[in-house]
């Protein structure tokens, strides 16, 4: 899972959001590292919808334009959790690294 996808899913952990709110939330939870442009955001949402990892929760009209809300599905939550576990395990390889004892010099 690529970083924009991961943080798009993570942005939806606290409940349904619309496109702009997802981008802002992803930026916040990634400490500013992931700044989703609109094209990237909607490409990610399109693929996540196709895979059933997010679903459209509802729609409202704001200033004459449709605004859709997206929510994390059960499958999306599981995929996000699996990715978090994978990243955590990968990180622990480095963070909990115990150096091997230096080999004894040959005599």
């Amino acid at each position, binding site marked *: 899972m690529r970083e*924009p996808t991961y943080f798009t899913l993570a942005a939806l952990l606290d409940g349904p959001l619309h496109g*702009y709110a997802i981008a802002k939330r992803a930026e916040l939870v990634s400490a500013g590292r992931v700044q989703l442009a609109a094209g990237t955001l909607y*490409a990610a949402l399109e693929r996540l919808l196709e895979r059933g990892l997010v679903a459209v929760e509802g729609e409202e009209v704001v200033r004459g*334009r449709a605004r859709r809300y997206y929510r994390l599905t059960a499958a999306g939550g599981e995929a996000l959790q699996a990715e978090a576990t994978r990243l955590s395990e990968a990180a622990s390889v480095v963070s909990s690294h115990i150096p091997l004892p230096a080999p004894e010099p040959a005599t």
Partner: protein
Amino acid sequence: MTAAESVYRLALRAYPASYRRERGDEILATLDEMQAGSPRPSPRQVASLTMSGVRERGARTTGGTRAGVWAEGCRLAAFVLLLLAAAASLFVIALDTWYSRLGIVWPGGDNVTYAPAMGTGALARSIVAVVLPLVAAWAVCRGRSAIPIACSVLAAGLFVSGAIGTGLVAGQSSQLGQEWLRNAYQLGDALVLAAPAALLCVGVRGGRQRAASRSMLWLAVPVVLAVLRIGFFASSITFWPLGALVLGWFVAARVSPHLAVAAFAVLVPALAYLLPTAIGGAMMYEYAIAVVAGASVLAIASLASAIAFGDVELDDPLV
């Protein structure tokens, strides 16, 4: 409508029409909020929309499968080659008409002596060399494969039999003293004419039964290319379309894998035409273009093999 929204609406044209109908307003609303009141469009947003739009088109036409990527890439390459072949022949007719018959010289040009007037028979053959690729390109626009394959085979057959000259080198070959160079040019011409048939056969076998249709506006491309080339021809820049193609690949390959396949499939026959000119020609820039084109072929080949062996994600380039 603000200036930013106008630009974003234009960038949204990169998406398929059905996608725009479904999501266009929603994306514009999100962009409006991202703008935070600024009237100027963000280049980053424009680039993102354009690339995502082209990727979305690619994902729909290829079906996100490896076979689909190769098939659509080959069909696209065939289409480009047909347009280039038509443009090249149209260029010769325009050259003949403008310079030799009407005596109009482009500012700075000295081409009156370069292009002697063609005979009526040669002109008629060049017209055939325009019509066949154009009919084939029209059929590709309609999503057909059989007609363009037939036209391509017919044009290549007529060319090999000596019945027509494609126009890619017509007007030059009579003045080329070296036999090998003339033969090399003719081989390049035959390849450019025959390649669409071969590529479309790959497209038919590897892709869906009916190819995606394209806008008929693409048929205007040969006219624009021929007119532009007339202008550049006068200043001796005769191979700018190939140079543009090479540069364009670096962008295209990053956007969608089927564009990389297409660029590769176009460059191979195009190089067959370009290299003899680089070797036999006198212009330094032609050597430079040949070197860049050669390096590009290697780069494209490595990317194409990466696609073939699964190192590139095809179904969702962004996710």
